């Protein structure tokens, strides 16, 4: 059994891992739909998006490893960290739920990532800026596709509307975490590595309001609950998804295709 790596939790590394891990864990959740989506075409669309996200995660984890300076590559960072060293937003680690839950989460995450990539195109780190320039095209499509489903199901039948409402009530509790300010964000903002996520708050709410409005869904009141995945303190679901992701690499160290 392969032991965990010792991560240097310096601010710039954490900042990139927040984004990279958000992509990585969401990709894993989307991958769970493979073979289970309601129709073949959507099955392909969801796994396409998962693979886009894996590609983005790979690039960011690689860059984070370079900045960290401990010779950790993308695979070690993806598969050999302990739970507390993952910094994804809690939103993306929640179980996939029903299709309504998954498409709403996709819309929320894609909107956030799109806004992030737009700012990261101007990153002081040339590597990150180049990753963003490629990722922004993918994120724009993810947002359009997911938002389209939100509108379709929200403004659909009684059943689909009720399911979207239920998904919205569950997922909205994890929004405050996305825009909570802290030292990691402040350092990134100060160095020009990337925006503080709190800077994206207004634009994110405006875009989500427009989607929810078209979907005839009422935006819930802001939750007082504050999840903490971005600081490495995760929900009870995180351990299970990591166990599934890490099992092979931990059991057969260095195994490749």
């Amino acid at each position, binding site marked *: 059994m392969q032991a965990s790596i010792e991560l240097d939790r310096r601010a710039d590394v954490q900042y990139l891992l927040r984004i990279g891990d958000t992509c990585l864990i969401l990709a894993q959740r989307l991958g769970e739909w493979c073979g289970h989506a309601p*129709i*073949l*075409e*959507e099955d*392909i*669309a969801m796994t*396409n998006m998962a693979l886009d996200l894996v590609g983005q995660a790979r690039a960011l984890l690689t860059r984070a490893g370079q900045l960290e300076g401990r010779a950790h590559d993308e695979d070690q960072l993806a598969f050999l960290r302990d739970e507390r060293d993952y910094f994804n937003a809690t939103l993306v680690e929640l179980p996939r739920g029903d299709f309504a839950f998954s498409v709403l989460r996709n819309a929320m995450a894609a909107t956030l990532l799109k806004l992030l990539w737009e700012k990261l195109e101007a990153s002081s780190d040339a590597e990150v800026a180049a990753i963003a320039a490629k990722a922004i095209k993918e994120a724009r*499509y993810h947002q*359009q*596709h997911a938002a*389209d489903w939100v*509108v*379709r*199901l929200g*403004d*659909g*039948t*009684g*059943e*689909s*509307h*009720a399911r979207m409402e239920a998904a919205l009530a569950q997922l909205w509790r994890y929004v405050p975490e996305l825009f909570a300010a802290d030292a990691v964000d402040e350092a990134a903002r100060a160095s020009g590595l990337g925006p503080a996520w709190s800077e994206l708050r207004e634009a994110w709410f405006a875009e989500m309001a427009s989607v929810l409005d*078209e*979907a005839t869904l009422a935006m819930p009141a802001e939750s007082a609950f504050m999840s903490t995945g971005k600081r490495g303190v995760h929900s009870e679901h995180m351990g299970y998804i990591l166990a599934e992701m890490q099992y092979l690499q931990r059991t057969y160290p260095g195994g490749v295709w």
Partner: protein
Amino acid sequence: MSSVEEGTLPSPGEGRAGAGSGTEAPKAAAAAGREWPLWEVFVRSKAGLDHKHCGSLHAPDPKMALQMARDVYTRRQEGVSVWVVRSDQIVASDPGDKDMYFDPAEDKVYRHPTFYELPKSVDHM
């Protein structure tokens, strides 16, 4: 070809007729064996070339048909432009008419430009 029924999945703006009875519509639709309509997909591989037919898919409306065509048929950089057309909007010749329609062209070799020998003065045409 008979016209295809509207899809069972709600399209935006379709509305929820009678809030309480919403769940009955999909059930009734399923019972009637209604499916999403079929669309033919045409992809242009690069600028300047024609759109070519590459397959078909089921989708509830034009917007989703286009997105799905993108997801299903352009994953390997096959295209720079996509068309989708409702299959039931295509008027096709009857296979039974094949002999009558197409065989008479068989012995009309003079309809091919290669049948004619060009005078030397218009060489390189």
